[in-house]
């Protein structure tokens, strides 16, 4: 598995579904190519939804392991990325449930802000904070559309809601996000500097 480099013997222009079919037939190179394509998107998927990067890495790893395990059950009835993000979302929800359950009895609730990261910019913080304030489903629809670039129909499949609901929730999320971003100080403003000191 090499970052961004297709494996030898696997055509670079193969679609995800063709690669997955080859992987089901036993081609390890096909899985390597899929991993190279989706390693960063899956990692980013979790990073945008949780504050702890180590947890994001752990869940990304778990997602690919789930694909390895579920290879024999894969049926090419939907796009590979729809299937992939559905698995990732399921793993994320499961982790959230367990973490919330543990937090109830351990009394350690997660912090609202992400830990200090020297690579994080001010706009990252503002965006994360604004997105966090959205309604849960609205936020998921928005993230799947903006970052995972799923179509409305794919989002509906992944979340199990009607396409019209996806459309209306996406509109509501974008409107709410715009208002949140307009009311918050810009990264270059003094208010943001104080927030950055916090993180």
């Amino acid at each position: 598995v090499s970052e961004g480099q297709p494996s030898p013997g696997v055509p670079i222009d193969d679609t995800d579904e063709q690669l997955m079919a080859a992987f089901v037939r036993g081609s390890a190179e096909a899985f390597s190519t899929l991993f190279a394509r989706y390693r960063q998107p899956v990692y980013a998927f979790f990073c945008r939804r949780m504050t702890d990067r180590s947890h994001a890495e752990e869940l990304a790893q778990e997602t690919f392991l789930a694909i390895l395990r579920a290879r024999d059950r894969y049926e090419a009835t939907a796009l590979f990325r729809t299937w992939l993000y559905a698995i990732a979302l399921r793993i994320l929800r499961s982790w959230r449930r367990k973490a919330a359950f543990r937090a109830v009895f351990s009394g350690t609730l997660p912090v609202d802000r992400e830990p200090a990261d020297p690579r994080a910019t001010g706009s990252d913080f503002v965006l994360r904070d604004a997105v966090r304030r959205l309604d849960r489903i609205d936020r998921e629809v928005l993230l799947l559309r903006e970052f995972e670039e799923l179509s409305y129909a794919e989002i509906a499949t992944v979340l199990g809601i009607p396409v019209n609901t996806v459309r209306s929730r996406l509109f509501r999320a974008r409107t709410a996000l715009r208002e949140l971003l307009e009311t918050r100080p810009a990264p270059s403003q003094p208010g943001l500097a104080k927030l950055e000191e916090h993180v």
Partner: protein
Amino acid sequence: MKTLDHPVAPEEIMAMLDEELSTTERQAVLAHLSQCAECAALRLRFESTSHALAEWQIPAAPETLRSAVEEAAAAKSERPSKPRRRLPRMAWAVGGTLGVAAALVVLVNVFPDRFAEHKMAAVTPPLQVTHGENLATFGGASPAAGKNGLLHAPAVHPEENLLRLENQLAASAPRDRFKGRMAELAVAPDPNQTAEGYGGGGGGGRAPLPALAPPQAPMIAREVSLTILVKNIPHARTALDGILSSHAGYAATLNVNTPESGSPSIVASLRIPAPQLDSALACLRTLGQVEAEAQSGEEVTQQHEDLVARLLNARETEDRLRAILAQRAGKMNEILEVEEQISQTRGEIEQMEAEQTALEHRVDYVMVDLQLTEQYEARLTGQPTAIGTQMRNALVTGIRDAGSSLLGLALLIEEIGPAILVWVAILGFPAWIVWRRYRRAQARF
């Protein structure tokens, strides 16, 4: 921005930017945007929001992610996946086992009698009876003897089978045992003779031992239970009376039941002289189809011997007391005391004599519990009820049942409601706290 003022909805502008519209719809939206400044501004705001989100940068995935997945993939490729047939095969095995178990459970529950019968047959082998032998151990009956001479025990308790075996052994060699027992008891056949002997001996020594009583066969108190399905109860009743009179038997109890819906029946407890039992049972079996038959016997020889011995002792005591009284050698108080003793002993003797009579009667007369049931035949009774009446009756019954159900529900709520309220009051608040914390934690993750 109101939809009524614009032919294009804001969501359609957003969908156009997301390339979710058809070509025709897209052209319509673009045409409107070229004319409407408000909608064009909305489009710019959507685009600026997307551009702002695009600034959210995520660092590159760490190398550890790649190594972990590589290891797992290598392990997966080394270990070929199992064929999918295994799961169905295992499912078949588990399902088959469960199915067989369920079938066994159903069989045991649906046919408990047959199961018990087979189980009993496996535990107790059939008793071998010589053909023509009149089952001396049972006092002459061999009711279940088949043509092949095998006596099958239908649904009989194991203890009864043991009793039969015991009786067979007793029939083969009962006399020696009985002799020894009689010698121990030193039985005097004639009480008067014994009294004279005691009187003649001056009351100090025992009378000379009388001759041994002749050996007796074991005494068996038998009971028979018979269930017969007959075609006509009145005819069966007449035949039953004839059987009783011809075999010198009688009915201790007899109940005739004639329910309105159901089969009439007769439940009787008969007493048949033991020697007549075989022929009487044979006649009873001709009344109809025998559905169940069971026989049991209780050996009361020992009990009878004990009773006889105690009776003899009591009579001896009475005789000695009478001899003392005849001498009139003591004071008045002593004489009165002797008379009182005689009276008490006489009472005991009479009680034991009654017991002996009852015991011997049990041996002489076999108790036969008989149940005659008529084959049920549905009959049209009177004129059929009108459909309207039946529907009305059904409606009334339904309303009554509904009321009963509601009443039962109300009573149940009244009965368990306070307890539930108490527990809700105790557990509700902590549960609400936990649930709130859970929701809050879930919202934060």
